[in-house]
């Protein structure tokens, strides 16, 4: 009997285009969208050399040397063109340069828009003025310090230091993908809702037909649910493979635990869907709507749509982080990737298991009834 029901449930679910769309194709499409959207965010880390024009009317050798020093070599900040003001303005108008530095009695900057490049040019000029002013003041007060001045100026002491939390570098984009995987695991809830509809005689006529057959209701439910779980696990594996090998999403070194985490998350998702299917009154569309709504809210709070939200919740309402299973799942992936130790990971997994048990027991208590008040 197990094989009979299992086989036909597999056929029904695999042929259900709507189901396959929501549980596999939609997350893949969303991941591609994320990848396109966040590739720009990642590229912000790589510095682009800034094109500038330098109009040297003052013939100030110090500034000239300073600007030359940051416009030479592989690590240069600027691609600098020495030219006259008229040509410089043409270049600026044609957006070939980000700004014009004019060395006259004062050093002035001309730009035609605001942005990171313009801020960097301004910062360079400000720093030069500050150092020049400092050096002038020191020399006027203590001429003997002239010998040590270049070395003093060149020395910068940082009073903060970066200390990595674990084995990998922080990557804010990863959090979006981890929240997306968590959402996909919870979209396994579609299977849970569907299985409840197929076993509760007050929800569908097919279920009524199964209920009058000589088979134990809960056994039939478990057989069907096994088929759903298998499909969900295959789908999440396909999705993970796509993320790793096509989009290049990093998961750290412990792939075994990553896969285990997605499987646990999927089971939590299916049990969550079953719970929604059993507890929410109304037809299948209502239950699906509630499932999508709750999953989306959970995903939002775990930072899928707005990365900062995860930290806002953790700062202002930390209990909500633990009550949101989608956040627990996303955070489990993140802690696997970031931390050397597994304490935070185990806490997240324990939370997920507790949720799975709560959802499963609640579902059992609701669907164990064999007769209905109305059909």
């Amino acid at each position, binding site marked *: 009997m197990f094989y*009979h029901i299992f086989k*036909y449930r597999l056929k*029904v679910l695999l*042929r259900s285009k709507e189901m396959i769309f929501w549980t596999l194709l939609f997350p893949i499409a969303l991941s591609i969208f994320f990848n396109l959207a966040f590739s720009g965010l990642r590229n912000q880390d790589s510095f682009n050399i800034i094109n500038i024009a330098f109009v040297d009317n003052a013939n100030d050798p110090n500034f000239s040397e300073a600007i030359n020093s940051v416009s030479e070599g592989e690590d240069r900040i600027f691609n600098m063109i020495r030219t006259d003001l008229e040509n410089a303005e043409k270049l600026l108008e044609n957006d070939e340069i980000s700004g014009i530095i004019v060395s006259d009695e004062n050093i002035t900057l001309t730009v035609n828009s605001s942005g990171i490049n313009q801020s960097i040019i301004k910062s360079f000029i400000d720093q030069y003025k500050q150092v020049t002013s400092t050096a002038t003041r020191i020399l006027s007060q203590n001429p003997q310090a002239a010998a040590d001045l270049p070395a003093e100026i060149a020395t910068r002491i940082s009073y903060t230091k970066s200390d990595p939390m674990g084995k990998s570098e922080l990557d804010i984009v990863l959090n979006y993908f981890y929240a997306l995987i968590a959402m996909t695991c919870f979209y396994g809830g579609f299977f849970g809702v569907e299985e409840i509809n197929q076993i509760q005689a007050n929800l569908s006529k097919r279920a009524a037909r199964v209920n*009058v057959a*000589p088979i134990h209701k809960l056994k039939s439910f478990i057989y069907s649910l096994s088929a759903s779980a298998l499909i969900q696990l295959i789908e999440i594996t396909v999705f993970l493979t796509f993320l790793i090998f096509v989009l290049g999403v990093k998961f750290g070194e412990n792939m075994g635990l990553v896969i285990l985490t997605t499987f646990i998350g999927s089971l939590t998702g299916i049990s969550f869907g079953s719970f929604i299917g059993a507890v929410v009154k109304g037809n299948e569309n209502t239950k699906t709507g509630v499932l999508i709504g709750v999953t989306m809210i959970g995903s939002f709070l775990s930072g899928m749509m707005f990365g900062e939200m995860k930290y806002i919740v953790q700062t202002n309402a930390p209990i909500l982080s633990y009550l949101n299973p989608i956040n627990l799942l996303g955070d489990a992936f993140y802690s696997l990737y970031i931390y050397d130790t597994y304490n935070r990971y185990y806490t997240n997994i324990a939370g997920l298991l507790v949720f799975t048990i709560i959802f499963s027991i609640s579902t059992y208590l609701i669907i164990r009834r064999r007769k209905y008040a109305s*059909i």
Partner: protein
Amino acid sequence: MIVEVKNLVKRYGDLVAVDDLDLEVMEGEIFGLLGPNGSGKTTAINCILSLLKFDNGEIKVFGKPMSPEAYDIKKDIGIVMQEVAVFNELTVYENIDYFCGLYITDKSERKKLVEEAIAFVGLGDFKKFYPKKLSGGLLRRLNIACGISHKPKLIILDEPTVAVDPQSRNKILEGIVELNKNGATVIYTSHYMEEVEQICSRIMILDNGKVIATGTKEELKEMISLGEKITLQVFEMEDTHMNFFKTMENAVSVDYDGKFLVMKFQKGNSNLEQVLDYVKSHKINFGKIHTEMPTLNDVFLEITGKELRD
């Protein structure tokens, strides 16, 4: 006794859906449950199947108390739901095989039964079709095949011909009679009196959850005072003629709508000869004349004061 129901009461809040129902279905009969929509037919069936909780009563099937765990009883019951209950993602063959497989575990036996069910409902050319590709009538036949493929001893059909074209309806009714001839006891619910009259050996009429009458169609018609109904197509009717017909000895009612004169008489002797004699002697021009015995609708009308189709 195949089904025995005693004092069944089912309430939905203040509404009494089934009110103290007693029902007995004998082996080998086609038992009709006739009543308008909302009369309690489907509710009674769902109680018999142990799908619904009920407030009072006792239900036995095959002589044993019925319950959700009574698998030895359930294996011999086939149910055809009022609504089509099949999987759109499975073909005709797969649907029948799936539901048959809930009763029959042996694969080779099941294959034989599924093929027989397909042949029985005439879906041999549609085995690989998905339900969405089937017409309403074919879909109903698939629904029936899913319910009867395991060769149950008791088949319950809950309004299986709703929204079905006349051709498919006849095919379904013929099939039910054949199932019965092959040994199955049938409970057939409908609000179509013609169907029930056509195939059922005994009939129970329900209204507002209560049993109005039970018996063979002849017994039911005997219960009412109405007898013959004569309809005369006539294009002109003088008052004197109308008065004559109204004052005939057994006349219950006489109505003329400008085209047809409808005369209803009490049970007893035939009145046709007297009517014809009068028409001839007074040279009344008429088109056609026919006489009929009361229908189940007349039975329902006389007992409840309303039409069965209301």
